[in-house]
């Protein structure tokens, strides 16, 4: 590790917080229906949209209506995307006449993009046409990101006031978030990316002659805009198979920093939004601090483990000061590669700019563990915030009694119903991650997907189910994902990880919204200080993470200790 490396990492994180602050307040204003500087331009579009679809923006929804609208819209989008992927051959903007996807791959991919996972069991440049990439994938990146944010807003509102029968209007929330937040930022970012060298064209490839006189076909397409929302919406599904390691997705260090900032922007911003909506800014800072602590710890572990290099290679004379550069791009180096991968797994983005399979065992474990925590530090757009609030509810419930009152969070009593729903949501993670992995390791057919046995093979399988359940989509690689078993089970894992978590959260919002807001006093459990930061970190780690210890110790931990004992698999 070098001081320069750390300076680079800290600088990026500080800039991310500074950018997130105004954006967070902007999102809060948008959520509360206040006018923003974008309204003169975009206001008429919003109103036209409501008129056309006959939506009364003043009509509020109960939590059940809100949930139904959300699920219905997501279902329709799933079907639409499935159809686009299957019928690609017959659709326009397919100059290379690429065939449609197989049913199981289309199921997996459609689920992947609707749930904000963006697990890709295919190679974008050889499987999908520019048309499919644009109206299939890119448009759904907006919908899935917007969906996550609406749930976070609905939950925030439930804490803001007492006696709420409604949580807002899903259609209005989604429209406003896409129109006033996601689209403007994505458009600006796309232009910057183009300026940095990312293509945005309908041509599918350029032909070049190399210095040796060989002809080379270089794939390209409408990459820049997709890249912008891919990062901004913590989606992570790349235009190319190599994702952000590809020079057309991520040409240089500047684009890499920009992409990291885009990933962190909204998850960080929403903590400010939360504080703003509930009327206590410090409550938002606390959540941001928890995310920050986990992020820094993860970067520290991953960076030190990668910078240290592989002892087996050092033993045969490779310069250890270079660190472990296997699978990393020279133009990013170790600090930016590590930061990128920690950030994209700490959020539910899942984009990669290096080969995770080639990371040191602990470097890879950090990414896996961040996802297993449930993508809450800071997590995906919206989903991270509501996930962290679920943990906050549990933390308050567990330790809140210690001040001599039955637990309350932000003035809302946490009772049997909320605990039941929170447990239900949290339960999905071990069930789907550990259950899916255990089942797959037991089935020879599934095990055949692994290129390697031993602890590294276990890590690959565990990573796949972790990534799918946490709706991250990042891939450890080294695993043949497009098999009937994995396409189907990972698709189901994504479905569970998204909706089996999100519906209980909305139910919690409904239940808490109705409750009276208990005024705070000196007898109230303080949730706006350092003490709660520590407590919440502990609960996320112990309740959210420790159950994965046994699995992790048979995967990356075993590999790590074996490696340093001079053994490889």
């Amino acid at each position: 590790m070098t001081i320069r490396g750390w300076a680079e990492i800290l600088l990026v994180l500080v800039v991310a917080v500074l950018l997130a602050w105004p954006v967070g307040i902007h999102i809060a204003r948008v959520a509360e229906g206040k006018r923003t500087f974008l309204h003169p331009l975009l206001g008429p579009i919003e109103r036209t949209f409501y008129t056309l679809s006959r939506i009364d923006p003043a009509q509020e929804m109960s939590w059940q209506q809100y949930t139904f609208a959300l699920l219905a819209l997501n279902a329709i989008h799933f079907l639409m995307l499935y159809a686009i992927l299957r019928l690609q051959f017959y659709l326009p903007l397919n100059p290379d006449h690429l065939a449609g996807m197989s049913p199981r791959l289309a199921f997996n991919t459609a689920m992947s993009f609707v749930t904000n996972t963006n697990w890709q069991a295919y190679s974008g440049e050889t499987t999908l046409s520019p048309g499919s990439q644009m109206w299939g994938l890119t448009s759904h990146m907006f919908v899935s990101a917007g969906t996550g944010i609406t749930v976070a807003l609905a939950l925030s509102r439930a804490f803001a006031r007492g006696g709420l029968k409604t949580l807002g209007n899903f259609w209005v929330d989604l429209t406003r978030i896409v129109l006033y937040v996601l689209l403007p930022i994505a458009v600006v970012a796309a232009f910057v990316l183009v300026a940095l060298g990312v293509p945005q064209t309908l041509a599918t490839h350029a032909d070049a002659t190399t210095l040796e006189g060989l002809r080379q076909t270089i794939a390209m397409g409408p990459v820049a805009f997709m890249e912008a929302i891919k990062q901004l919406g913590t989606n992570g599904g790349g235009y190319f198979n190599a994702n952000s390691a590809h020079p057309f997705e991520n040409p240089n260090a500047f684009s890499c920093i920009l992409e990291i900032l885009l990933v962190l922007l909204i998850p960080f911003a929403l903590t400010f939004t939360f504080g703003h909506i509930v009327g206590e800014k410090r409550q938002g800072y606390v959540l941001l601090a928890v995310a920050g602590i986990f992020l820094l710890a993860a970067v520290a572990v991953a960076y030190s483990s990668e910078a240290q290099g592989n002892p087996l290679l050092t033993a045969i004379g490779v310069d250890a000061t270079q660190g472990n550069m296997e699978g990393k791009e020279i133009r990013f180096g170790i600090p930016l590669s590590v930061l990128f991968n920690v950030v994209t797994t700490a959020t539910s983005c899942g984009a990669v700019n290096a080969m995770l399979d080639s990371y040191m065992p602990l470097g890879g474990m950090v990414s896996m563990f961040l996802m297993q925590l449930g993508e809450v530090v800071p997590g995906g757009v919206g989903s991270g915030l509501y996930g962290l609030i679920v943990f906050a509810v549990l933390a308050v419930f567990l330790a809140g009694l210690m001040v001599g009152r039955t637990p309350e969070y932000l003035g809302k009593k946490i009772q049997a119903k909320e605990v039941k729903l929170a447990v239900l949501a949290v339960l999905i993670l071990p069930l789907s991650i550990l259950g899916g992995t255990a089942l797959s390791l037991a089935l020879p057919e599934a095990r055949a997907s692994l290129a390697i046995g031993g602890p590294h093979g276990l890590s690959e399988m565990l990573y796949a189910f972790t990534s799918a359940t946490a709706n991250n989509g990042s891939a450890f690689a080294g695993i043949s994902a497009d098999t009937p078993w994995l396409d189907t089970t990972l698709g189901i894992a994504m479905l569970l990880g998204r909706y089996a978590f999100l519906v209980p959260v909305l139910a919690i919002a409904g239940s808490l919204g109705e409750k009276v807001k208990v005024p705070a006093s000196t007898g109230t459990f303080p949730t706006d200080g350092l003490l709660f930061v520590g407590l919440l970190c502990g609960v996320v780690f112990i309740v959210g993470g420790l159950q994965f210890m046994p699995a992790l110790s048979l995967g990356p931990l075993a590999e790590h200790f074996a490696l340093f004992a001079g053994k490889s698999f």
Partner: protein
Amino acid sequence: MTSHHSKAERIPLLDRSLLSRALQDAFRKLDPRELIRNPVIFVTEIVSALVTLLAVRDFAIGKPSLFSLSIAVFLWLTVLFATFAEAIAEGRGRARAETLRRMRTETLAKLLPNPADRAVFKPVPASELNVGDHVLVEAGDIIPSDGEAVEGIASVNEAAITGESAPVIREAGGDRSAVTGGTLVVSDWLVIRITAARGTTFLDRMIRLVEGAERRKTPNEIALDILLAGLTLIFLIAVVTLVSFAHYSGATLSIPVLAALFVCLIPTTIGGLLSAIGIAGMDRLLRFNVLATSGRAVEAAGDVDTLLLDKTGTITLGNRMAASIVPGPGVTEQELAQAAVLASLGDDTPEGRSILAFARGRYGIAAEKPEGAKVVPFSAQTRLSGLDHEGQTWRKGAVDSICQWAGVENMPSVLTNAVERIARAGGTPLAVARGRQIMGVIELKDIVKPGIRERFAALRRMGIRTVMVTGDNRLTAAAIAGEAGVDDFIAEATPQDKLSYIRRVQSEGRLVAMTGDGTNDAPALAQADVGVVMQTGTQAAREAGNMVDLDSDPTKLIEIVEIGKQLLITRGALTTFSIANDVSKYFAILPAIFVTAYPELEALNVMRLNSPQSAILSAVIFNALIIVLLVPLALRGVRFRPIGAAELLRRNLLLYGVGGIVAPFIGIKLIDMFITALGLS
């Protein structure tokens, strides 16, 4: 903190007969049908049974079974310690119930077929009385059942219920008409209308409550149970899936080892102690002579953030007392005090006595009746008392009465001003006259109890608002409220005022506690989240409240809140401790079970435990022992300090959170050293 603590009955935490009884009960409670109420311990029992079966099978077929058997033993001990904790908590209540049950001896009641005619009665066993029957009780009778006096007046010894042997007056009509079955009539007689059906008398209910027969889980216990069950499920998933992971990795895991890991991870500590904590909380109240009708009420007491306190008796001493004197022109304070003493010798009321006490304390004047003097006693009609001696007359009383008696139309201005000032401050002015001369004015005022202001300040630090309820006018009320340091007051309070105040405060999300005794308090008591009824209260009031104070001491409300908080803190502390314990167990067990597949994982054995077997056994033993070690804490409760939530959280989080992470590392290591030394593994 107050005199109440010394009054609380001292039952030693663990006494020999209690222990042996609890041990029997602990085995009886192993019945799965009863244990299923406690999901975590129920699951532990199933796992213990499974491991036992396997160990016995191994033993039968001659496979090495010592290790499995030791695990089975300690898993069973885990379950047993949990049931023992509950049994011992119940045992303490049961001792009290036995005493009560002895009171409920079968008595013969004098049934009056015609309530109007007391001469004709029919003796019937008390157990055959019906609601609405009228019975006669006379001196020496035991009151056969709960009822309401409809005729007569009697003094009743209620020691059976309250432990207080001084008899109390019960009379028809008014707020002292309720009588309790099992209490003894000391003098006179009463005609009672029976109000409780068989088996539902106050005494019956008290016995059931004390025994815990009516114990239902409180809302917070239910929520906690859900969370504990959820955690159990999560760890079940983690352990079951581990079979596949281990198989893939080439490690073989036996069922006893998996069972050990599972039981160590699930929250057995809090699961085992949860009900004991609840019972102990109610027991603490009971030793305080407060009977809660449900655990829910105790829990609510901890949540209360608004206390409605009656002024008289709670905030101020029962009566107004002399606080200062103002002499008229040409009179010294000493002379006035002397005159006041002489004039008050005939006043036996608390106010009169307070004047004597004041004069003695401030001016050193002894209350001695001069030889041959004639005392004029105080009467409500004249509102005067006085003394005639050797042609001189002294009088003391209400200002207008004295003026009239002395034939004075205008008092000196210094006295008129004093009278006005005293009245404005909420006090009562009295005048003292010698002959025709008004000598001065005595100020009687409510004396705020010593230390109560500090009490309220402590409550405020706990986030609790105090509200004074008084029949006084606003002016008087404001003066006393200011002096006592309450946050708010309700002046000229009617029962309706109290009710609407409670409703308003509740609609703001606050929880309210109050005390009451009269029938007209009933609606407010029912509306309050915690309604403490004085044992001397009416039947209607008793039914409306959810706690009964057997000592009828309204100040106890403050301690009740503290006991409620103590219960919640204890529960929270042990939950936190239990969950924090998990960290160490991974480090003890994981390296031990995977060491054959990946010897390098020995690096995770940070405690340097001797062998895989001793590591697993040590973790299981620690897990069982910690329950029994924490029983005293669960029963006694974590100490509550009124230092504000933030400070309280900091202390407890450090002690039970961080402590909960660290303690088992030490404990498991010590056990490992111990069993290694014994050569057990």
